[in-house]
């Protein structure tokens, strides 16, 4: 017989084990889906998860995709830890890219060491500005931040579309929806000859280190943790709730904006219509899969980045639709949330022995 018993305390070992379990279950379910679609499950999984990263170029692509995911997820973990549901990182990324791209275009065909820092800073500020809208509306007008941040995603994409088609479009671009190429001084340097991985990865790593320090070594981190557990307790302890809400939104907006900078000033070097394959949404999954822990998020961003690459490879080699990537991402989150049950409940097998 099986009996379910509530644990006295959530199990810490299981806290870090369940993400692994969730990934495993996703692979099993994914294999099953491939089987139903009429593919050989093991071969499909191999094309999805191993082939794309088997060589140097593939590994560079993996890091390229993991960089924005990691950066955004780190930012989101500030929000999620303190019970703020910012789900509009995709919009903050887009707006950050717009502002940073605008600054980069100001320096068109100019060179100088000061250009890149300005471009990066502009991206962070753009993301912060955009994230401040749901934050201010939440704190001063009591407006639901989930819906506002999400609506703003659609708005940001339309602003971008307007700019690259209209006023910012390349005058010599034959009406392609894209801007002029940024000058070399406005671009993040590529790290290796022939590979697309760029210096943006250092921004992500810096975010990891800083967030670890803030979470575990500062008073702010402690306040966030308390607010996450219980808003009542936080209020009782006299924490300035409003200030913190705005601060965590600004941090996560800055991170998303920086991810946007990486997307446009990296290998691409211009603004165009589709700068992000929904990194902002996928990063929500990364944040949860990484357990809102900086190191966990590094691993999670690598795992989830594979689903992007795998979807592309599987499409080329097996004609598996590329949206399978999103299906995998949704499943990872489902299984992760489901296996959290084990955190709070123990499943006991009571033998038939009397």
């Amino acid at each position, binding site marked *: 017989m099986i009996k379910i018993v*509530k644990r006295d305390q959530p199990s810490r070992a299981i806290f870090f084990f369940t993400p692994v379990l969730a990934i495993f279950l996703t692979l099993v379910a994914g294999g099953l889906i491939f089987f139903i679609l009429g593919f050989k499950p093991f071969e499909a999984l191999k094309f999805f998860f191993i082939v794309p990263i088997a060589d140097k170029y593939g590994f560079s692509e993996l890091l390229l995709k993991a960089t924005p995911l990691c950066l955004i997820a780190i930012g989101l973990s500030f929000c999620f830890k303190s019970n703020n*549901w910012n*789900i509009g990182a995709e919009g903050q990324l887009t707006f950050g890219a717009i502002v940073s791209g605008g600054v980069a275009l100001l320096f068109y065909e100019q060179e100088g060491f000061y250009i890149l820092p300005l471009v990066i800073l502009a991206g962070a500020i753009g993301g912060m500005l955009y994230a401040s809208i749901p934050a201010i*509306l939440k704190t001063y*007008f*009591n*407006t*639901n931040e*989930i*819906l*506002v941040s*999400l*609506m*703003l995603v*659609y*708005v940001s994409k*339309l*602003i971008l*579309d*307007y700019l690259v*088609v*209209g006023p910012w479009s390349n005058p010599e671009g034959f009406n392609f929806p894209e801007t002029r190429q940024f000058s070399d001084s406005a671009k993040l340097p590529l790290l290796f000859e022939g590979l697309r991985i760029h210096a943006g990865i250092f921004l992500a790593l810096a975010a990891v280190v800083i967030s670890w320090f803030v979470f575990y070594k500062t008073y702010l981190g402690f306040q966030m943790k308390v607010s996450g557990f219980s808003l009542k307790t936080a209020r009782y302890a006299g924490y300035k709730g409003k200030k913190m809400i705005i601060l965590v939104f600004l941090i996560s907006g800055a991170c998303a904006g920086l991810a946007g900078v990486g997307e446009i000033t990296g290998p691409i070097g211009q603004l165009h219509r589709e700068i992000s394959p929904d990194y902002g*949404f*996928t990063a*929500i*999954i990364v944040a*949860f899969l990484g357990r809102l822990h900086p190191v966990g998020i590094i691993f999670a961003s690598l795992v989830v980045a594979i689903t992007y690459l795998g979807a592309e490879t599987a499409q080329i080699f097996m004609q598996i*639709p590329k*949206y*399978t*990537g*999103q*299906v*995998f*991402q*949704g*499943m990872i*989150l*489902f299984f992760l*949330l*489901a296996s*959290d*049950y084990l955190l*709070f409940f123990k499943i006991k097998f009571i033998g038939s022995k009397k």
Partner: protein
Amino acid sequence: MIIDINFIGLIIASIMASAVPLILASCGELITERSGVLNLGVEGMMIIGAISGFALMTVTGSLIIAIFGAMLAGVLISTIFAFLTQTLITNHVATGLALTIFGIGISAMIGKNFVGIPGKEFPVLFESLKDTIPLIGPILFGHSIVFYFAFALPFITSYFLKKTKIGLIVRAVGDSPDSASNQGINVRLVRYACILYGGAMSGLAGAYLSMIYTPQWIENMTGGRGWIALALVVFSTWNPIKILIGAMIFGGLTIIQFHMQAIGVRIPVQFLTALPYIVTIIVLVVISRDSRKIRLSTPSSLGKSFHKDN
């Protein structure tokens, strides 16, 4: 300039038509939320309904199978949400987001083979009465059965919540799950039922889009309507009749945008397209500013998990 009075009627009718999916999905979500469950997966359930309806219509050729199949698909996918949030007690927000991401992925995967296939004509009712009364005729007559159902739904929902015993139970579960449970009501069962009902309505809303409104399958064709439906529930302060008003405003914004483009108003098309989203934000701000009113009308246990220790 002479404006044909029937033309105004047609514009109003087209506003109503674009309000239909919002009304359906919002009324479904309203019941779910009234039982204390916040399902953010409306967009995902809607897009699943859209592809299921279109695919079933193309494969079986039967509109009835397609419509009910889309609702069933909505029910099936919302079962995942119900099982996770009610049985495994997961966080409502995160689970709803997963549902949306998963739904968009699955729909695009299934829909790959249905891109570019023309839709079928959906039968309309009272076509012959359309020209009998000026202005009113085009508004009232010549629409699909789903259209009429959508405009009846807010009233049915209101009656259900206020006047029926089951409606009372739903409200009790949403406002005070503990005391409802003490009264012998199976809270989990009620919430399961409300979630699945919400799934069915979102599925129907999606099917309306892909089978009647723009009869074809386009990837991501719900385009944020699921999220606007969620905002409408807040806008209505959980009152189904007000959903009707909200949906008409948003339907109006969508339609006016088309007409302004047609007349040649010199506003970039992107700004007009962004209008419904911006207005949603403004409306949310205006509604939510009065925090006392919001607190009074929000189901007290909304988004909170309920677990009964046995």
